[in-house]
């Protein structure tokens, strides 16, 4: 009888945790979507506030990732050394992301500085074409593998 009660309590406790984490994930997702929708509705211009909101969305995304990995994948309850073999290599991503995005931005700035034709070309407005035109290509021919 006592064992049954214990087992029942365990099942209840785990079910409670599942509901709790699911609720957190749902709330975080809804907030992300609300911010995304706001950025669309308010038609925010490119600037600090827009980038700040994108940063908030990224933080919320990482928060969700933590919940999924720690609770759904149970990593939080594993042996500390196992947790570290998973988490420590992921710190490589911090360098990876910063280095590559910085490099991309640098490429863009250098190209705009030293290739005025490229900068001009990217400022030509498109002819408004019919929505749904299948296989419609723009005014400039696309070379395969071209960066732009």
């Amino acid at each position: 009888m006592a064992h049954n009660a214990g087992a029942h309590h365990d099942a209840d406790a785990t079910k409670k945790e599942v509901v709790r984490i699911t609720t957190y994930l749902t709330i975080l997702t809804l907030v992300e979507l609300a911010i995304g929708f706001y950025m669309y509705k308010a038609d925010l211009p490119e600037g600090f506030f827009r980038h700040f909101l994108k940063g908030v969305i990224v933080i919320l995304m990482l928060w969700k990732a933590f919940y999924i990995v720690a609770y759904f994948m149970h990593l939080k309850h594993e042996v500390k050394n196992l947790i570290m073999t998973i988490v420590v290599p992921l710190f490589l991503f911090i360098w990876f992301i910063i280095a590559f995005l910085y490099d991309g931005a640098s490429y863009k700035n250098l190209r705009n500085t030293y290739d005025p034709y490229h900068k001009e070309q990217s400022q030509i407005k498109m002819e408004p074409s019919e929505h749904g035109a299948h296989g419609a290509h723009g005014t400039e021919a696309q070379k395969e593998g071209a960066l732009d």
Partner: protein
Amino acid sequence: MAQAVPTGQKLWGGGKSPFNVEYGKIMMWYFLMSDAFTFGAFLISYGTIRFATNGWPDPNHVFNSFPGLGSGFPLLFVSLMTFILIISSVTMVLAVHAGHRNDKKGVVKNLILTIIGGAAFLACQAWEWTHLYHEGAWWGSNPFPNADGTQATANFSNFFFTITGFHGFHVFSGVIINIIMLIMTLNGVFERRGHYLMIEKAGLYWHFVDLVWVFVFTCFYLI
């Protein structure tokens, strides 16, 4: 909150798992690490190209259709897809918990729900791809203009289809694995073994698929 190990116990002396976890589970974790770096590389290359490009389409003006409702509903369809995948992850957690209790019926029920969720997500993704294709988008072809009205690069659709394609393929293989798990459960394989650890490993893969979607959906639809 990590698992406690009694002091003085020789962790690396052999004969037992130093991580207190079976070999197959550790290997699944390490496979997921490698897959995480693969998807990470894809998404970071997407970010690099996007940062290196002067103009880019606004996702809310590209992805704004809902089946049956037409266009003008940004973020709605992708929200549905995200919730479907999150709920399928929840049912997978419940399947694993049922396995801990050796509750075969519970495992079967929750595996079926997870499979349905995965199949629903694939159907949604197929609809999204078909819809975009009919608007003229495909590898090498991008009909959508940049946010500022200028001519956009085909990289937009190239990256979208490639990365969501890889993710969709992982969802597909996850659904197949879950179906195999279901058949094995129904045949009493785990009942005879005395444990449902295989379901846990399949669960890790399924949660990973959900996790990748969290990142993919944020990168392509939100930021």
